[in-house]
C-alpha cells in the first residue's frame, strides 16, 4: 500500500523548527553585550583604583606631619627643661644638653619624609630654607642652654655658700684685733651688699639691677688692713656676692635671648607650609576624587544596567521556553493528527479497494442473475413457462434447478453486501474522532476492526491467525488504539511483503495481570536488526524508502500507548520475525499486579 495520498497540508512552522536549540543569532545577541560589559567593567575598575590611589596620596604628608609633631614636642620640652634648670628645679643638665641632638635627628627624619612628597618647587625651596633656619635656631638654642646651665651652676654654688661666707666674715669681725668702728662699718657694708644680693635674687625684671660694686670696693678697702683671715673672708664674701649678682644678670640676658630664638615660630611655619602644600594637593586631588566618584557612579550604573539586561534576557528566555513548550505540544498534536491523516489516507485507500471487491462481486452476481433470468425467459417463451422452468432440473443433469441457481446467486450477492456492511461498520468505529473520549471497549472488537480495514493490505501478503482469550474490556480511546493496531498490522504486512511465500500474522490477546490486557502482534517477516531495534520508536526514524512513510508511526503509537498508561514492547530476531506487544490497562486506577500472572497458554511469544 502506498501512501501517496496528499498530506492534509504542510506542518505549520513552529517558532523553532529545531526544538530545544537557540539559533546562533540569538546567542550572539546575548554574548556581545557581555563582552562589552566585561571590558567596560575592567576599565572602570582600573580607573577607579588609580584615582583612589592618587586621591589618597596624602599618606606621605601624614608621616611628615608626624615627625614635625615630634620636633615640636622636643622643642617645647627643651624650653621647659631650660626654664626648670634656671629656676633651680633641675640639677641634672642632661635634659638641656641632649635635646639638640634630638632636634637634628628629627630634622633629618622630616627631610627624609618630605622627599617623596609631591611638592612644587617653591614649596620645596621654602621647606629647605625653613629647615636651614631651624638648624641654626636649634644650634643657637643649644648655645644659650649651655650658658644658662653654666651660669646657673655658679649661681647655685655661690648662693648656697654665701650665708656661710657671711657668717664666717661676721664671726671673724669678732676678732679683738679688729677695731670696733671698722667692724661696724664692715658690717654695714656687708648688710648693703647682702641687700643687693637679695634684690638681685628675689626681684624681677628691671628692679633686679643693683649696683654693689661701689660697696664691694669699699669693703675691700676697709678690710685690706685687717688681719689676714678677716681680709681673706671678706674677699671670699665679696667674690661670691659679685658672682651671684653677675650671674643673675647674665641669666636674665640669656633668658631674653632664649625667648627670641625662633624655633617654635619656625616649626609653626613648617607646619603651615606642609598644611598649605597638603591643601593644594587636596585641591588637585579633588578633581581626581570627583572623577573617581563619577567612575564609581558609572560603575554602579553599569552594574544596574547589566542586572536589568540579565533580567530582561531571563524573561526573554522564559518566554521563548514557554512558547517552545506550547509549540511542542501543538506540534505533537499536529503530528499525531497528521499521522492519523496519513494513516487515514492509507486506510481509506485500502477500504476503497476493499469495498470494490465485494461490490464487484455483488455487481457480478446481480449481473449473472439478470442474464440467467433473461436467458431463461427467452428459453421459456413466456412468464408461465418460466415459472415451470424454475423447478426443472438442469439440462446437463446437475442438481441445481433454475430456482436453485437464482437462490445461490442472490445469496452470494447478499454475502458481498454483508462484507461491505462490515467494512462500513469498522470505518464508523474508527471515525470516532474525539481523542479524549475514553470508554470501556472490548479490545477484540478493535483488533477485528483493524484487521478488516487492513484486509486489502494483507490479502496477498499474509495469513492471519487469531488467538483470543477472555479478557475484560480496556479503558481507552477507541480511535487511538485502533490507530495503533492498524499501524502494527501495517508494519507486519510491510515486513512480510516482497517475498515469494505468504507470511503469517499471529494476533494473540491475553490477560497480562490483574489490571492489564496484552495484545501480541507477531509476524514472521524479515525482523529488525538489533542495532536498529532501540531506535524504532524514535520519531522520524524509518526503515522504509523515501516517500513511503514519515517514520512517525511507531513514535505516535508509543506516545498513544504511554498516554493510556500502557506499554509498547518489541522483540525481534533477524530472519525469524518480530513481535510487538501491547499492554493496556483494563481500567484506570486498577489494582497493581498481584504477582499471579494470567496464563498465556497459546500466546507464547518466545520465537
Amino acid at each position, binding site marked *: 500500500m502506498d501512501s501517496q495520498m496528499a498530506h492534509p497540508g504542510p506542518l505549520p512552522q513552529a517558532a523553532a523548527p529545531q526544538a530545544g536549540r537557540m539559533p546562533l543569532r540569538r546567542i550572539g545577541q546575548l554574548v556581545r553585550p557581555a563582552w562589552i560589559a566585561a571590558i567596560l567593567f575592567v576599565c572602570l575598575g582600573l580607573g577607579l583604583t588609580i584615582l583612589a590611589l592618587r586621591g589618597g596620596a596624602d599618606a606621605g604628608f601624614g608621616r611628615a606631619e608626624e615627625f614635625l609633631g615630634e620636633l615640636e614636642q622636643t622643642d617645647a620640652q627643651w624650653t621647659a627643661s631650660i626654664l626648670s634648670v634656671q629656676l633651680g628645679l633641675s*640639677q641634672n643638665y*642632661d635634659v638641656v*644638653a641632649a635635646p639638640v*641632638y634630638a632636634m637634628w635627628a628629627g630634622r633629618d627624619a622630616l627631610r627624609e619624609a618630605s622627599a617623596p612628597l609631591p611638592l612644587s618647587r617653591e614649596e620645596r625651596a621654602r621647606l629647605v630654607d625653613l629647615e636651614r633656619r631651624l638648624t641654626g635656631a636649634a644650634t643657637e638654642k643649644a648655645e644659650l642652654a649651655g650658658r644658662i*646651665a653654666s651660669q646657673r*651652676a655658679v649661681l647655685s654654688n655661690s648662693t648656697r655658700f654665701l650665708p656661710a661666707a657671711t657668717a664666717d666674715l661676721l664671726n671673724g669681725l669678732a676678732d679683738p684685733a679688729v677695731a670696733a668702728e671698722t667692724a661696724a662699718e664692715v658690717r654695714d657694708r656687708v648688710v648693703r651688699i647682702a641687700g643687693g644680693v637679695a634684690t638681685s635674687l628675689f626681684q624681677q625684671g628691671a628692679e633686679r639691677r643693683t649696683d654693689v660694686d661701689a660697696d664691694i670696693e669699699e669693703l675691700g678697702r676697709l678690710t685690706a688692713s685687717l688681719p689676714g683671715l678677716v681680709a681673706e673672708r671678706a674677699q*671670699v664674701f665679696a667674690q661670691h656676692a659679685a*658672682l651671684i649678682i653677675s650671674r643673675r644678670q647674665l641669666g636674665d640676658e640669656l633668658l631674653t635671648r632664649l625667648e627670641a630664638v625662633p624655633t617654635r615660630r619656625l616649626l609653626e611655619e613648617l607646619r603651615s607650609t606642609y598644611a598649605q602644600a597638603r591643601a593644594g594637593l587636596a585641591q588637585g586631588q579633588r578633581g581626581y576624587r570627583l572623577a573617581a566618584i563619577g567612575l564609581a557612579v558609572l560603575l554602579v550604573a553599569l552594574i544596574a544596567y547589566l542586572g536589568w539586561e540579565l533580567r530582561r534576557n531571563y524573561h526573554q528566555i522564559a518566554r521563548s521556553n514557554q512558547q517552545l513548550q506550547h509549540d511542542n505540544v501543538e506540534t505533537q498534536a499536529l503530528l499525531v493528527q497528521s499521522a492519523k491523516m496519513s494513516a487515514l489516507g492509507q486506510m481509506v485507500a485500502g477500504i476503497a479497494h476493499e469495498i470494490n471487491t465485494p461490490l464487484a462481486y455483488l455487481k457480478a452476481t446481480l449481473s449473472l442473475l439478470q442474464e440467467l433470468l433473461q436467458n431463461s425467459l427467452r428459453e421459456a417463451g413466456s412468464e408461465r413457462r418460466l415459472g415451470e422452468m424454475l423447478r426443472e432440473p438442469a439440462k446437463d443433469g446437475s442438481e441445481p434447478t433454475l430456482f436453485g441457481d437464482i437462490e445461490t446467486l442472490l445469496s452470494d450477492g447478499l454475502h458481498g453486501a454483508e462484507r461491505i456492511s462490515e467494512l462500513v461498520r469498522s470505518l464508523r468505529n474508527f471515525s470516532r474522532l474525539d481523542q479524549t473520549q475514553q470508554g470501556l471497549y472490548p479490545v477484540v472488537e478493535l483488533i477485528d476492526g483493524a484487521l478488516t480495514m487492513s484486509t486489502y493490505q494483507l490479502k496477498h501478503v499474509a495469513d492471519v491467525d487469531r488467538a483470543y482469550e477472555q479478557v475484560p474490556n480496556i479503558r481507552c480511546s477507541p480511535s487511538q488504539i485502533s490507530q495503533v493496531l492498524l499501524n502494527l498490522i501495517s508494519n507486519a504486512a510491510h515486513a512480510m511483503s516482497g517475498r515469494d511465500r505468504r507470511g503469517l500474522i499471529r494476533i494473540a490477546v491475553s490477560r497480562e495481570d490483574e489490571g492489564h490486557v496484552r495484545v501480541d502482534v507477531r509476524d514472521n517477516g524479515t525482523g529488525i536488526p538489533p542495532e536498529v531495534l532501540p531506535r524504532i520508536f524514535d520519531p522520524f526514524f524509518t526503515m522504509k524508502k523515501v516517500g513511503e512513510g514519515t517514520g512517525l508511526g511507531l513514535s505516535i503509537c508509543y506516545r498513544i500507548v504511554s498516554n493510556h498508561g500502557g506499554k509498547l514492547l518489541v522483540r525481534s530476531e533477524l530472519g525469524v520475525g518480530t513481535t510487538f506487544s501491547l499492554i493496556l490497562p483494563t481500567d484506570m486506577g486498577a489494582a497493581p499486579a498481584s504477582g499471579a500472572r494470567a496464563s498465556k497458554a497459546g500466546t507464547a511469544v518466545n520465537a
Partner: protein
Amino acid sequence: MLLVAICCLGSDRMLRAETAEPIAPVPTQQSLEPGRIALGRVLFEDRRLSSNGTMACASCHMLDRGGADGQRLSTGLDGRPLAANTPTVFNSAFNYLRNWAGNVETLETLIDRVMQSPTLMNERWPNVVARLSADSSLARQFAAAYSEGMTAASLRDALATYIRSLTTPNSRFDRWLRGDETALTAEEQEGYALFRRYGCVSCHQGRNIGANVRQALGIVGQPGAYFTERGSLTEADLGRFQVTGDAADRFVFRVPSLRNVALTAPYLHDGSVATLEEAVSIMFIYQLGRTADEPDLRRIVQFLGTLTGEIPQAGGRATPAR
C-alpha cells in the same frame, strides 16, 4: 600588699637614683649589633686609618690605661705633642659635649674631625676605603654586616658603634645609686655628701658626672687667674674661645666626666695635675672659691674612687677592685 609596698619602695629608690639624684647610673644593657662592634674594634686598633700608617685610635685611647694613655700630652702624627690632654674614650656614648672645647657634635662628626685633623690621622675617608677594601677578609666582613658593604659611612658607623660599646657600668657608686646600700663605705658616702654640699655636683652631674656643661677654669677671681698663676699661657688655654671666637668663651672648657677619674691621671686640659688631691684642691680654689679642710678633701677623693666601673677589655669586662 606588703610585696607591692616593698616593690614600690625598691622602685622608688631606683627612681631616686634616676631622677631626684643629679647623677644617673650607666645603663647595664645596650642594644648594639655585635657584628658591627667587632668590626669597629678592628678599625679602632688599625693603623691603616692614619695617613702614614703609624697611628690608630688605640694609640692614645688604651683600654688598660683608663681609655687614655696616662700621658700629660700624647704624641701626634707628626711626632709633636698634641695641644691638650687626651680625654678618655670610655662612656663617650653619654657625652653631650665633645673634647675640651665642649663642641655640640655627634660622635660621628667627631670621628670625621679626628680623621681629618693634621695632627691625628691626617687622612681622608676615600683613601681609607681604598686601602681597606684591598683587605679581602675585612671587606667580606663588612659586606656581611652592612648592606652597602665597606663605605666611608659604614666604616664610620662601625667605629662609632664600637666606641659607644665602651661603657663602664656597675661602678660602686652606680650600684649604690641603684639601691645597694653596701656598695659604698660610710666615708665614701660622706664623701658624696660633701661633693654635693660643697657644690662640686653643680657642674659634675648628669649620667656621666660631667661632659654636659661648660665652665670657665677660674670662676672666682680674675678671669684666667689660674693660668696667670700657673704661668706660660698657651693657645689651648683659651679653651672654647679657639672655636667660637667669643670673648665670653675664654678659658671655658667642657666640664670633664669624673667617671673612672681615678684611672685617668694626669688631670686638667693641660695634663698638669698629677694627683686627684691636687685636682680637687684646684677646683676648690678656682671653681668653688673656698677652701676645704683636709679630712673633707680626703673624703671627696675617696668618693671619686668609687666612680670606676667595669673596664671593657678584649675578652669582656673587669670588675673594679674594692
